[in-house]
Each structure stands twice: as structure tokens, then as C-alpha cells.
């Protein structure tokens, strides 16, 4: 694997670990999700350059849908701030057994 590919893979893994480990604020979780998607976007862009396919439709698709996902995440942040009075993930405990 190329050095750039390894870098993007590590940034993806670090963001995944952050998403799994940190349960403080919903916004930090959404940032970790965005980091995952952005590292994949950059890896796909580098791959399209390397393989000389000049097809940028794949990274653009990924970027578009990750933007949609971020929008939905922010909407849920607003909604949970309205209903729970806070956006902390520790307060999302109404449905536990």
C-alpha cells in the first residue's frame, strides 16, 4: 500500500476509535463521523489520480452523501437539544432496559 493510502487508513481508524470511545457530546461524535468520511474521500481521490482512471464520480458521490449525512446529524443534534435540553450523549438514556 502506498504511503498516502496508509496515512488515510490510519486517519480513518483513529476517527473510528474516537467515535467508539468518546461518549461526551453529540457534536464530537458527528465530527468523528465527518473525519471518517473525509479520509475516505481523500483516499478515493488519490486512488483516482494514481490509477489514471480520471473518474472523479466516485469521490464526488461519497462527498455528496457524507454532506447529506452531516446535515441529518446536525438536524438530530438540534432536535435532541430541544427535547433533552442538552446534547450530551450521556443523557440519551430514556430507552435503556
Amino acid at each position: 500500500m502506498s504511503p498516502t493510502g496508509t496515512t488515510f487508513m490510519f486517519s480513518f481508524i483513529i476517527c473510528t476509535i474516537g467515535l467508539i470511545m468518546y461518549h461526551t457530546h453529540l457534536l464530537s461524535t458527528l465530527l468523528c463521523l465527518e473525519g471518517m468520511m473525509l479520509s475516505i474521500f481523500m483516499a478515493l481521490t488519490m486512488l483516482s489520480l494514481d490509477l489514471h482512471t480520471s473518474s472523479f464520480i466516485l469521490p464526488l458521490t461519497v462527498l455528496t452523501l457524507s454532506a447529506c449525512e452531516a446535515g441529518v446529524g446536525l438536524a438530530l443534534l438540534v432536535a435532541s437539544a430541544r427535547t433533552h435540553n442538552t446534547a450530551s450523549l450521556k443523557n440519551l438514556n430514556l430507552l435503556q432496559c
Partner: protein
Amino acid sequence: MPLSQPIILATLTITTLIFLLSTHLVLIWVALELNTLAILPLIAHKSHPRAIEASTKYFLTQAMASALIIFSGTLNYEMTGSCQIVELTNLTSMIVLTLALFIKVGLVPFHFWVPEVLQGMSTTAAIFLLTWQKLGPLIMLFLISPLINFELTSVVATLSSLVAGWMGLNQTQVRKLMALSSIAQMAWIIVIIKYAPSLAILTFYIYSTTISATLLTLDKMSTTSIKYLIISFSKSPITTTILMISLLSLSGLPPLAGFMPKWLTINQLLAEKAIWIALLMLITSLLSLFFYLRLWYNSSSTMPPSTTNTTRLWRKSTPQSNFTINLLTMATTTLLLSTTLMKAITKQEYSLG
């Protein structure tokens, strides 16, 4: 939300068609993502705290799973230069994709979101979540089934069956019980997907019919806890009988349709010499049989000789029998004939070599 509902249903339909038609990994990922985003308004459609919490939890798990799916696709693209899902030959990306799909359908190491999300949403939307939403990940598993690792799927399947039954033992919320029963049924689908993918699809088909009938009946009787099942027979005997039949079909007892996929699965597993897996699946399904039978017992405990000592829910209207529910329950019962038919057709294939 009268205006957005057609758009949501159209999106759900079209994305499932994309699943069925495409083998390009990025296209399937787009369909998965759109599917997730389209179901969110159905979960959060009443803006009370529990619905918002359920949709947040659903969104976070599904977004993480789809990020892992596109990651495995990118890794495979870098290693082999192919974006086709059927050519996913890199081992790491294969394992990552399988685990991400397990998050999507809610199998055991990643199953915690299923009961909580189901508890927060309405019962009719729960039918969508438990049947339609699982179609896409199952089609992906179907496509990669020749490459999948049998050890991984069998361990996850036995663990799912065990943990779902275990968690159901002291559960009184009916929707959470249905979520756990869905996890236990997914275990039967996953355990066979390597050796007989079409049998897994058949299992999923019968599971969807049965769990739709059960959830529609529970919605009709406005039952949220086992406690309210006690008065159900005095309210509506027919609906209660339908519920009992659906529950027994879910548990897989012989006269009903739920028996057929389990029988064929055990047969196939024995033919593949996976005897211990078959034994473990059978033993752990007894745990889920226990909570189905408890629901059954509670709904039949006020049959005529005994009197009810629970107050009626006077605010709720008495349920009338409904054509859709009757049709689905007929399907779950009369598919009995297909058991013997299937056995006769596939006698050579499933014989113990």
C-alpha cells in the same frame, strides 16, 4: 406528515431496487445511505424525546456501519483495483464489510441499538425497520456469500441466538421482545448464508411475513407491555388467537410456517458436517421459545374459565379484525404445506451424504 410520506416510501422502494440490480460497491453504498436517511423521518415522526433519542441512536450506528462499508470498498479498490462487490477478494476488507453488515442488521456484538430503537418508535414503523430495512444488508451478504468466512458467521449466529434469548428472559416490554426475537431470527439467516444463500432468503421471507403479522396485531391491540396482553382475550378473541398463531410460527413449532426454514437449515448444516453449530442453534432457540411461550401464556390466561383481575384500558378502542392481519396470518399458517413440498423437491440436495 402527509406530504413527505410518499417521497419517503418512494425512496425506500427505489433504493431497494438499486440493491437488487447493482453489484458496484459504491452504488450499493449510496442505496444503503439513502435508505438510512429516508427511514429517519419515520422514526422521529412524533417529536417527543424518546423518538428523537431512538432516531439519534439509529443514525449513529447506521452511519458508522456505512462508513465502514465504504472503507472496505476503498481498501479493496486500492488493493485489487476492483469496485465490484462480488470481487471482494482482499481478506481485511471482506472481514470489515461482514462486520459492518452485522452492525446494520443488528447481530450480536453490535446488537444494542435494536431494542432501544424499537422501543422509541411506533409499531407500524417498526415493521419497516425490522423487515424492509434489513433487505439491503442481506442482499449484500447474499452477494458476498461465496467469499464469506463460515467461522465468523457461525460464531456470530450462535452468539446472537444465545444473547437474544437470554436478554428476552426478563423483558416485559413487547416491542423490545420483538426486537430480540428479530435478532434471534437473523441468527438463523446468517448461519446458513455461506452454504445455502437461497435458503437464507427464504428464511428472511417467512420471518418478515410472521413478524409483520405479529407487530400489526400488537399495534391493533395497542399493547406495549406484557401486562396489557392479559386483558386481550376478553377484548378481542379473534385477534388474540391470531397473535398466538403468529407467535408460535415465530418460535418455529412444526404445524406452522416458521418450522420450514429451521428444519431445512438444520438439514443443510448437518449435510455440511457442522453438527455442533446445529446443536448450539437448536439449544439456544429454546431460550427464545421460552419468551414466546410467556407472551402466549399471558394472552391466553383469561380464557373463559378464569376471570381477569386487571383493569381494562378504557381509553383505547376495541380492536376489530383486519384483513391485512388475517391475510398475513393465513400465510404464516398455510405455508405449512410448502414444508413437505420443499422437502420432497430437495430430497437429493439435502440428504445426509
